[in-house]
């Protein structure tokens, strides 16, 4: 019976949408009947768990909404005065695509399983007062979306119940370059929750179909940062990622996720001083360097160099990994287009040291002090270590000997005198 009613309703609803001018007056008449009760601000019902639910409908807000030219019965098809509890409104009748993707999302699945807190259509879009997302007063207007998501995602009880990322993640977004662009500058072009996570089809990032799954991240960020994506695609990391190497870094591995800040921010993982640590998170890993035959000890040799020491003590103009190797466009040194290819080193070093020509670029840049890698430095170090040790030993011996010698001299002098 219910299904038949639904089927009958569909053409009616469609007609209502297309024949709005004619139906508006009829709808007004219908609405007036509803408003006899629902226009009363004090009308409410008690809930089974205690508390009350207001049944008041703000007719003005409804009329101004995107559905405002419809009739109450367009959505509440089973309503007649007076009535008992109505059936739940089904938005999918008119918005089938949205409903389909919602039903496959983490919210939709949760809702179907009876998770009371899982966001439903009305939680994000509102009920009688739904407005188009382009309307600045809409809940789903770009500048308002974060607030809508955070209503639940900043609620500690919900986070704990469903094991969601903690408050600090949400706060990190508000402090991030995207969050600040939104909050401080009101930029429509900034990334809000739905730009990365999607809207109806939100899924956790560990599911391959999620917009925020690792393999989808470069394209996701590339939606806005298109020029960077192009550079990244040509880099060794980009090629690796496209080649199915899951370990190959994507945007978020270096920049972070919610907490992305400007590179001038000292807390950013790509702030000059933090770059060596960020790169070494992978490049100092034994497994990664042997799997991809990467040179080892890049971090320690860098940190021991002039550049490394200067950077460690806060001179951010000293060269860090990215100054020589590049960042989005990193290529292996064997590639002729690489900034650290032997042929390109004079130009790369020349960014800061104008006299560092081809002659200067001879020899290794990361000096690993072993006989094979840097014989000169190794030999000097060994020579001095031996030389200093021998000298100290001889000094100690000499001091010891002199102690005996002086006792002998003293005895002889005293003996000679006596």
């Amino acid at each position, binding site marked *: 019976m219910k299904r038949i009613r639904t089927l009958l309703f569909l053409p009616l609803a469609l007609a209502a949408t297309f024949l709005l001018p004619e139906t508006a007056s009829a709808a007004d008449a219908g609405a007036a009947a509803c408003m006899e009760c629902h226009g009363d601000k004090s009308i409410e019902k008690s809930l089974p768990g205690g508390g009350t639910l207001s049944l008041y409908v703000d007719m003005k807000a409804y009329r101004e909404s995107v559905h405002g030219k419809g009739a109450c019965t367009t959505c509440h098809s089973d309503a007649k005065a007076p009535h008992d509890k109505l059936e739940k409104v089904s938005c999918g009748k008119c918005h089938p695509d949205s409903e389909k993707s919602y039903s496959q999302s983490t919210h939709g699945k949760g809702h179907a399983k009876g998770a009371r807190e899982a966001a439903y259509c009305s939680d994000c879009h509102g009920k009688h007062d739904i407005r188009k997302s382009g309307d600045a007063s809409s809940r789903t207007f770009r500048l308002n979306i974060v607030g809508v998501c955070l209503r639940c995602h900043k609620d500690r009880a919900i986070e704990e119940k469903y094991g969601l990322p903690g408050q600090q993640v949400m706060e990190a977004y508000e402090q991030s370059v995207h969050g600040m662009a939104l909050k401080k500058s009101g930029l429509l072009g900034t990334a809000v929750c739905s730009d990365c996570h999607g809207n109806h089809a939100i899924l956790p990032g560990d599911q391959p179909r999620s917009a925020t799954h690792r393999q989808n991240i470069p394209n996701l960020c590339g939606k806005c940062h298109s020029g960077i994506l192009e550079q990244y695609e040509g880099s060794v990391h980009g090629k690796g990622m496209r080649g199915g190497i899951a370990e190959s870094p994507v945007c978020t591995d270096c920049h972070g996720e919610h907490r992305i800040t400007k590179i001038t921010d000292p807390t950013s993982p790509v702030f000059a001083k933090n770059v060596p640590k960020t790169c070494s998170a992978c490049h100092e890993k034994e497994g990664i360097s042997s799997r991809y035959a990467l040179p080892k000890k890049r971090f320690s040799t860098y940190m021991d160099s002039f550049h490394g020491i200067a950077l*460690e003590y806060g001179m951010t103009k000293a060269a860090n990994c990215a100054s020589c190797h590049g960042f989005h466009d990193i290529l292996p040194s064997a590639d002729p287009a690489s900034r650290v290819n032997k042929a390109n080193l004079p130009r790369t070093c020349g960014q800061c040291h104008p006299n560092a020509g081809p002659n200067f670029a001879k020899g290794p840049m990361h000096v690993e002090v072993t006989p094979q890698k840097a014989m*000169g430095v190794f030999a000097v170090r060994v020579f001095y270590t031996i030389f200093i040790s021998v000298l*100290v030993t001889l000094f100690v011996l000499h001091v010891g000997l002199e102690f005996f010698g002086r006792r002998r001299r003293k005895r002889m002098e005293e003996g000679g005198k006596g």
Partner: protein
Amino acid sequence: MTAMREGTTPSATVVRMSLMFRIQHALLMVTLLVLALTGFALMYHENWLGRTLIRLEGGFLYRGFLHRAAASLLMGQLLFHAFYMLLTREGKKELGEFFLRRQDFSDFLQSIRYNLGVAAEYPRFGKYGYKEKFQYWGATLGIFLISVTGVLLWAETFSMRFFPKLVLDVTLIIHGYQGLLAFVILLFWHVYNEHLHPSVFPMNNAWLTGRVEAEWLRLEHPLEYEKLKREGVL
């Protein structure tokens, strides 16, 4: 001290360091100390020693300024000293005293033999024995080497034009270890000879007063003592 034995009156003193040399010595002491503190700050940058020193020196930038300021002073002094020793009357005389001779080597061997109880006589030194000569020439050579390497590293824009990075890496390591060597020698040899040695303990005051007691000279540098006697200074 082993004064009050025979010959001279106990209070008789004799000039060992003129004012000119005392000034040079004091300057050398200050510059070497500053250079060591600012240099080791960089050499041991990764541990507490370096971190503490760099903090005390007002940060990384000021550590560099201090190091290069002291280095400029030291190099100026090295040049001044070279000219002073080669061109002035006092300098020429001192340089003559410092000349290395075959005798110094045999003195060294004899002192060892004596200390071991093999030789019967302790060597008789002139104004400067093998200990002082080792200190003087060691320091001069060391300061020369550390100045050359230091200038190459300081003028990196110039050096990079002529030397591969390979050479500058070696230059850096020589500079650091030469500093360590100088520090170790000063600590062991100089502190022992001029402070801890029983004949001068707790300190040879000559670097402040310029004078030593004649009796000390008679015992430690008998040839110089006799020479001064002959010249009628004593």
